C-alpha cells in the first residue's frame, strides 16, 4: 500500500475549489464546515445555515460570542455585510425549493444510485436527524465529503446502503480521501483519483463498480497545516 489518504482539511480544500463565485451554499454540521476555510480568493460565496441566517462569516473571537447569532451546529458566528435573518420555514424553503446551489454533507455510506446514509448507524441510542433529510433534497448539487473507507477499512461507497437512509437518489458528487466521484444514472463515475493509487487498488476499496467516462484527473491537493 503505497498510497496516502488526503486529510480532512485536504478534502475540504478540494470541495472548496468547485464552489463557484456567487454560489449559495449550505455546509453540514461538523466536517463539512471546514470547507469555508478554503474558499478561493476572489470568489464571493454566501453561506446558509438552516436555523435562519444567510451570509454569515467566521467564528467570533472567544469571549465575543453573541448566542443569538449561531449556526445550525449551535456554534457562534458573525455576519458578513448583506446578511439576512428569516424564520425556519423560509429557511427550509431555500433548501427544499431548490434555491441553494450546493449542500455539502458528511456520510456513513453512499450507494451507487445516490442514496445517502448519514444520520444513524443502527437502531440503538437516541435518534436525531436535524436538517439532514431536508438538505439532501432541493439543492442543485448535493455533495458528500468523506473518508473513502471506514476506520476498519470497509468501503463507504457501496452498492446498497446498510445503514438507515437519509435520502434516496440524492447525492450528485462524492469527495473522498482518495477520489472525486460523480453519482450518475450509470452509478459511480470516477472523475479524479490520487495519483499514488492505482485503479485496481481504488476499486478494491470501493463497494460499487467505478465507471470511467472520459479522462480521470489527478486529485492533487496542496499540503495543509492541520
Amino acid at each position: 500500500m503505497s498510497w496516502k489518504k488526503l486529510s480532512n482539511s485536504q478534502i475540504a480544500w478540494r470541495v472548496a475549489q468547485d464552489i463557484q463565485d456567487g454560489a449559495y451554499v449550505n455546509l453540514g454540521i461538523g466536517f463539512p464546515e471546514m470547507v469555508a476555510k478554503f474558499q478561493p480568493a476572489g470568489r464571493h460565496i454566501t453561506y446558509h445555515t438552516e436555523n435562519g441566517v444567510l451570509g454569515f462569516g467566521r467564528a467570533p473571537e472567544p469571549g465575543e460570542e453573541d448566542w443569538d447569532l449561531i449556526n445550525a451546529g449551535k456554534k457562534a458566528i458573525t455576519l458578513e455585510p448583506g446578511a439576512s435573518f428569516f424564520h425556519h420555514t423560509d429557511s427550509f424553503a431555500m433548501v427544499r425549493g431548490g434555491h441553494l446551489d450546493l449542500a455539502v454533507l458528511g456520510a456513513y455510506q453512499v450507494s451507487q444510485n445516490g442514496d445517502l446514509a448519514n444520520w444513524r448507524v443502527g437502531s440503538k441510542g437516541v435518534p436525531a436527524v436535524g436538517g439532514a433529510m431536508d438538505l439532501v433534497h432541493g439543492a442543485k448539487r448535493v455533495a458528500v465529503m468523506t473518508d473513502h473507507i471506514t476506520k476498519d477499512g470497509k468501503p463507504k461507497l457501496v452498492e446498497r446502503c446498510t445503514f438507515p437512509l437519509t435520502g434516496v437518489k440524492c447525492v450528485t458528487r462524492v469527495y473522498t480521501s482518495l477520489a472525486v466521484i460523480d453519482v450518475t444514472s450509470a452509478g459511480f463515475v470516477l472523475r479524479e483519483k490520487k495519483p499514488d493509487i492505482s485503479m485496481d487498488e481504488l476499486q478494491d476499496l470501493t463497494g460499487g463498480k467505478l465507471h470511467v467516462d472520459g479522462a480521470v484527473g489527478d486529485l492533487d491537493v496542496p499540503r495543509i497545516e492541520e
Partner: protein
Amino acid sequence: MDKTLSSLEDAVASISDGDVVMIGGFGGSGAPIEMIHALIDRFEATGSPKDLTVINNNAGNGKIGIAAMIDKGMVAKMVCSFPRSSDPRAFTDRYLAGEIDLELVPQGTLAERIRAGGSGIPAFFTPSSYGTELAEGKQIQEFDGKPYVMERWLKADVALVKGHLGDKFGNLTYRMAARNFNPLMCMAADRTISQVSQIVPLGGIEPEAVVTPGIFVDSVVEVPNPRQEEEMVRNGEAYA
C-alpha cells in the same frame, strides 16, 4: 457578486416567448409598472415575448401595465383570482372573444400555491373552494372528518417584482401594502427580477429588516420615484 442591472431594457431581456411570468402587485399596489412597460417596449420592437402566461392577482386595469400587455396581444393566459378592476375592458374583451385563457384561483390558494412552488412543496390541502365549481376534478381528502381540496404548486420562468429598497445581493424590502404577492413570487420563479425605488449599499437594509433574502432574487434594477398604477389609471393614461 453584483446583481444590479443598469437598465430596464436589460432587466426584461431574457424573457422568452411562451414563458410563465409572475408579476407582483395587488391591483396597482406593488405592481412593477416600469418593468412591464419595458417588456412592452421590447415586444413592440422585436415581436417578443409573446404567448405569455401571466400570474397576477388581477388581470390589468385601464390601458397600462398588464392591461396594455393584453391589448398588445402578448398574453395567452392569465392565472388570477380577480380579473376585474375599475376598467377591466382589456381582459374582458379578449376573454369574451375567446382570445385569452383564464385559470381562476381563489386568492389565498393562489398565494399558497406560489409559496409552495418556491418551497419545494408539490401539493397541499386547503378547505378553500371545497364543494364549488373551482374544485371540480381536483383530489379531495378528509382530515379529521373535514373535506379538503388538493392544490398543486405554481412556478414560473420569470418573476417581475417591485421592491422598495434593494442591495446588490438582491435583498429587498417593500413599501407598506405593496408587499402582497411580491415576496412569494420571488421564491417561485427560475429568475426573479426586481425593480426597486432605491439601491442601497450592503448593510443599508438591516439583516432583521430584510423581507426577501437575496437568495430569491437574481437581478435588481433601480427605478427612482416609480409611478403608481392607480394614479395612472385615474389620469386615463395609456401605454401605447
